[in-house]
C-alpha cells in the first residue's frame, strides 16, 4: 500500500458520476453530514450542459482551517463513471485513494502504483438488495455514501438524521436509503481497514453557519429588498436565482387568506423583453430586476444604455459563465466585466457590485436596489457560476429590521404642491442626481422618458449645449456613485511588504489560502478585494502603495486589469495578471504558482 499522509478534516473528496442518475442528493448528503460534524466544507458541482448521460463531478473539500477554495488536490476519488475512469484515476493526488464499482472487471492497464485502489461491487450489492431497476441505479449512489461513511468515519447517526429530515414526508424512502447505506458501510468495514488515514473527525457543530448557494441567497436578497417584479428569460447559470425568488415569494408574499401574490414574475420572450420589463416596472416605482448571464447582457445592452441615459433605476444580476458566445454554459468565469462596465453604445458606464460568496450575494442584492433607486441608473450584481450554483458554507445571513429601503429622490403630490414647476433632469443638489416622479400619482409631475437627446428640463433637444449639459451632469453622478458602492476590503500581511494582490468575487477563497501558503514561504502580500465599481480612493491608494500588484481574475484577457488601467491612470507595468480561465473554479494552487513564478522571473532578470 502506498504511503499516505494522515489527513484529518483536511481532504478533497471527488465523486465522478453520470448526470441524471440522482447522484446530486447522495453528494449533498455527504456534504451536509461533514458540515454537521462541525467541519468547514465546500461543494463544487462540475456538470455538463446536458440533461442525462454525460459525465459530472462533485468535489467536496473538508478544511479544518476553513479554506473555501479548491486546492487542486484530490485525496479520495469515487469513480462511478466508466467513461471517465482513466481521467479520474489520473487526477488522484499521490498517496490518495480511488474507489470504483468492482462489479465489472477493470482494464489491467488502468492502474497506478502511487495510489490505493479500492474496489466495491456496488452494482452487485444493489442488485442483490433492490428489485426495481431505477431504484437500483439511485441506491448505488446512496451505497457509496455508506462506503465513504465507513472509510472516512462519517457519523452514521448524522446521516440517519439527515435522511429522516429529507424524507420526512415519505418515511418509506428513509428505509430504502438506510438499507443502501448499511450495505455499503458493512462491505467497507468487512473488506478494508476503516477508517482510512484520510478521514473526518467531529470538531464542533458549525454553529452560526449555513450551507447555501449564491443564487438562492441572491433570490432571497431580492425578496428582502422589497423587489416585486422579476422579469427573466431562462439561462444557465442564473435560472436558479428566479427559482429561489419564486420559492421565497410563494413562502413570504402570498396572502394566506386570499392567495393573492404580492409579486409578479414574468417569464419574458427573450432577454430584450426582460430588460424592458425591468425598466417599465422601475419607472412606475416597483422595484424590479432581471437575473441573467453574459449572453443575456449582450441582448439587453440597448435597454441598458437607455436606462443609463433616461436614468431609470434597474438591477441586472449577471451570473457569469464561460464565454465568448455560447461558450461553456455550465462552467464558471469572471468574463463580463468589460461588457457590463460599459454596456451599450455611446458613452455609458455602470456601477457593478462583486459579491465573493453567497453571504455577500444576499447583502449586495439588497444594496443593488438601494443604489439603483438612489443613483437612478442600472446596477450590475456580478456573481458567477461558482458562487451562484455551488454549495458554500457561510455565516448565517443577518437582517436588521430597522432597515428601510432607500428609494432615492422621488417627488410625490405633497412635494409638487410646494413647487412652481417640476423638471426632470435638473441637478439641484450638486450630486448629479435629479428628482423623478412616478406615473399614476400627479399630472403636475408628468414628464416624457426618452432615449433621444434631452435637456435638463426633460424636453427633446438636438441642441449641442443642452446635450452636453446632461452628459456632463451624468459624470457628476458617476463621482457620487464612486462614494456609494461597497468599498474594497484590505487585508494586510503580517510583515511590511511592497507586494499586493488584488482580486474580486469568487477568487477570494483561493487568494486567502494562497497568501497563507506564500507567507510560509516568506512571501508576504497585502490583499485588496474589490467589491464595487467605480473604484474608490482606497483602490487608488493600494495601487500607489505597492510596487507590484498581482491582479487575480478568472478570464483570459485580464479584464479587471484593463479596467484598472482605464480608470486609474496607473502605470501599467506595476500590474501583473494571474489568470485562470479554464472554466473550473480557481484553485489556491494557481495563485501560489502565479506569484512564485513572477517573483522567480524577476529575480532571474
Amino acid at each position: 500500500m502506498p504511503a499516505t499522509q494522515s489527513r484529518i478534516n483536511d481532504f478533497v473528496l471527488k465523486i465522478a458520476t453520470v448526470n441524471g442518475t440522482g447522484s446530486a442528493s447522495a453528494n449533498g448528503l455527504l456534504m451536509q453530514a461533514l458540515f454537521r460534524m462541525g467541519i468547514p466544507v465546500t461543494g463544487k458541482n462540475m456538470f455538463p450542459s446536458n440533461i442525462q448521460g454525460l459525465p459530472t463531478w462533485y468535489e467536496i473539500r473538508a478544511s479544518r482551517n476553513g479554506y473555501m477554495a479548491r486546492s487542486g488536490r484530490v485525496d479520495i476519488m469515487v469513480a462511478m463513471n466508466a467513461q471517465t475512469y482513466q481521467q479520474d484515476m489520473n487526477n488522484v493526488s499521490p498517496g490518495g485513494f480511488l474507489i470504483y464499482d468492482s462489479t465489472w472487471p477493470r482494464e489491467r492497464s488502468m492502474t497506478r502504483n502511487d495510489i490505493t485502489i479500492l474496489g466495491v461491487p456496488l452494482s452487485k450489492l444493489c442488485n442483490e438488495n433492490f428489485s426495481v431497476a431505477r431504484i437500483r441505479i439511485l441506491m448505488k449512489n446512496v451505497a457509496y455514501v455508506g462506503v465513504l461513511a465507513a472509510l472516512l468515519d462519517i457519523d452514521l447517526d448524522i446521516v440517519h438524521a439527515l435522511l429522516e429530515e429529507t424524507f420526512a414526508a415519505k418515511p418509506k424512502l428513509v428505509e430504502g436509503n438506510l438499507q443502501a447505506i448499511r450495505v455499503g458501510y458493512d462491505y467497507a468495514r468487512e473488506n478494508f481497514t476503516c477508517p482510512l488515514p484520510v478521514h473526518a473527525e467531529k470538531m464542533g457543530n458549525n454553529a452560526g453557519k449555513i450551507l447555501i448557494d449564491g443564487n438562492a441567497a441572491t433570490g432571497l436578497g431580492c425578496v428582502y429588498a422589497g423587489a416585486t417584479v422579476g422579469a427573466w428569460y431562462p439561462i444557465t447559470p442564473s435560472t436558479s436565482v428566479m427559482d429561489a425568488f419564486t420559492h421565497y415569494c410563494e413562502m413570504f408574499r402570498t396572502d394566506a387568506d386570499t392567495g393573492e401574490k404580492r409579486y409578479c414574475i414574468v417569464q419574458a420572450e427573450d432577454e430584450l423583453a426582460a430588460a424592458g420589463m425591468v425598466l417599465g416596472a422601475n419607472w412606475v416605482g416597483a422595484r424590479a430586476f432581471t437575473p441573467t448571464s453574459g449572453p443575456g447582457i449582450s441582448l439587453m445592452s440597448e435597454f441598458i444604455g437607455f436606462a443609463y441615459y433616461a436614468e431609470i433605476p434597474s438591477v441586472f444580476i449577471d451570473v457569469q459563465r464561460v464565454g465568448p458566445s455560447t461558450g461553456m454554459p455550465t462552467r464558471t468565469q469572471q468574463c463580463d466585466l468589460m461588457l457590463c462596465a460599459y454596456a451599450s453604445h455611446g458613452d455609458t458606464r455602470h456601477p457593478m457590485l462583486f459579491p465573493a460568496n453567497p453571504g455577500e450575494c444576499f447583502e449586495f442584492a439588497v444594496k443593488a436596489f438601494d443604489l439603483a433607486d438612489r443613483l437612478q441608473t442600472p446596477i450590475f450584481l456580478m456573481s458567477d457560476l461558482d458562487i451562484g450554483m455551488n454549495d458554500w458554507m457561510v455565516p448565517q445571513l443577518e437582517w436588521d429590521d430597522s432597515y428601510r429601503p432607500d428609494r432615492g429622490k422621488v417627488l410625490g403630490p405633497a412635494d409638487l404642491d410646494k413647487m412652481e414647476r417640476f423638471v426632470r433632469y435638473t441637478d439641484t443638489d450638486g450630486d448629479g442626481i435629479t428628482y423623478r416622479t412616478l406615473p399614476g400619482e400627479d399630472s403636475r409631475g408628468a414628464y416624457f422618458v426618452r432615449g433621444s437627446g434631452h435637456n435638463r428640463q426633460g424636453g427633446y433637444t438636438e441642441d449641442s449645449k443642452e446635450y452636453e449639459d446632461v452628459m456632463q451632469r451624468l459624470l457628476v453622478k458617476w463621482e457620487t456613485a464612486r462614494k456609494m458602492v461597497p468599498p474594497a476590503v484590505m487585508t494586510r500581511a503580517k510583515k511590511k511588504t511592497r507586494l499586493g494582490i488584488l482580486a474580486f468575487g469568487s477568487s477570494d477563497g483561493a487568494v486567502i489560502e494562497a497568501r497563507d501558503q506564500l507567507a510560509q514561504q516568506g512571501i508576504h502580500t497585502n490583499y485588496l478585494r474589490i467589491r464595487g465599481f467605480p473604484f474608490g480612493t482606497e483602490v487608488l491608494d493600494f495601487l500607489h502603495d505597492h510596487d507590484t500588484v498581482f491582479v487575480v481574475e478568472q478570464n483570459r484577457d485580464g479584464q479587471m486589469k484593463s479596467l484598472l488601467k482605464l480608470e486609474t491612470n496607473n502605470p501599467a507595468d506595476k500590474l501583473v495578471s494571474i489568470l485562470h480561465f479554464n472554466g473550473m473554479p480557481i484553485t489556491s494552487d494557481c495563485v501560489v504558482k502565479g506569484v512564485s513564478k513572477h517573483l522567480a522571473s524577476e529575480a532571474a532578470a
Partner: protein
Amino acid sequence: MTYITKPKIDLPGQKRNALGLLQRDYEGSMSTLCAGCGHDSITAALVQALWEMSIAPEKLVKLSGIGCSSKTPAYFVKGAHGFNSVHGRMPSVATGAHAGNRDLICIGVSGDGDSLSIGFGQFGHAIRRNLNMLYLIENNGVYGLTKGQFSASADPGSTAKKGAPNLMQSINPVATAIAMGASFVARSFSGDREQLVELIKAGIAHPGCALLDVISPCVTFNDHEGSTKSYAYTRLHKHQATAADYVPAAAEITAQYAEGEAISVKLHDGSSIVLKKADSDFDPTKRSSALGYLEKHRDLGEIPTGLLFIDEDWPEMHAIYGTAAKPLKEFTFAELNPGREALQKLQRGMR
C-alpha cells in the same frame, strides 16, 4: 410639421367633462409630423376619446417605440407620463409598467415597422399575455423617418413612391393577432374619426390587450397611386364590417336593432360595446368566423374595418398570474419584507 400653435385661451361655452377638464387639457405638445399625416388625426381621436371618457391624465401612461408613430405620445395628454422606448420594445416596457402598477391605463402607440418587423416578437407576446392595454398600430406600410422603405405591412404589388413594386407578402396585424389569440382586435382608418373614437374607447374599456390597427397614410412617402395605404385607396376599399358604439356603464343602450344585425358585449366594468354588423352571418366573437370574414373580404379587395374580434372572458395578465388587486408599487416595505425572525427560521433548514 405644423407651425401654428393653438392659442391657450379660455373660450366661453367650452364643454367640460366629468372631471371638469376641457378637451384642450388632453392635448400634448405640438406635432412635428408632416402636415396631413394620418397620425395627427389619430392623436386628435385619442384626445377626444380620452376626454369624453373623463380619464384622469395622471392615471394614463403613454408608451411607444421608435418611428413617426412613436413620436405621437408627446402630442396628447400632457399631464400623463410618457415613455418613448427603444425600437420595437414598447410592449415589454408596458408589461413592466403594468406589472408594477396595474391601475394605470396603458396606451401603447406603435407603427408597422415597430410592431411587425423589429418588434414582431414583443407584439405577439403582449397579445399572448393579454396585457391590459390599448395597443395602437399606426399603419402606413412604409418607413417614413428613413425615407420611404417598404415595411412588413406593405401589400404585395403595391409600389413605392418611385414605382418599385413590393414583391413580398404583407404581414396583416389584424389576422395575425386573431390567430395568436388576441382578445380584442379592431381596424380603423385615420380618416374616419367617428369610428376611431368609438374603437379607442372600447379598446381602453376592454380588460385585456386591445389591438387597434389604424390605416394611417404617410403623405410624404406612401400616398401616391400604386400605394394600398393611401387616403384615396383606403377610402375606396375600406369596408365597415362592424360599427362599434361604446356605451359607458351608467348610460342606457337606446338604439334598436333587428335580429342578427347587432350584438352587445358587456364589459366587466359594466360598460358595453354595441356592434352593428354589415353581415348578419359574421360573428366577431368566434375566431374562425373573424378570420374567414377577413379572408373573404381580402379576396374581394376590401379592407374590413371596425371591431373584428372580441373575447371578453379571456383573463388578462394579472388574473393569470394571481397578482394582488392592489398595485404592487403601493405595498409598504413591511408588507413585502419577511423580517429578521423569518430569516432566522428559514435558515434552520440550511444546516
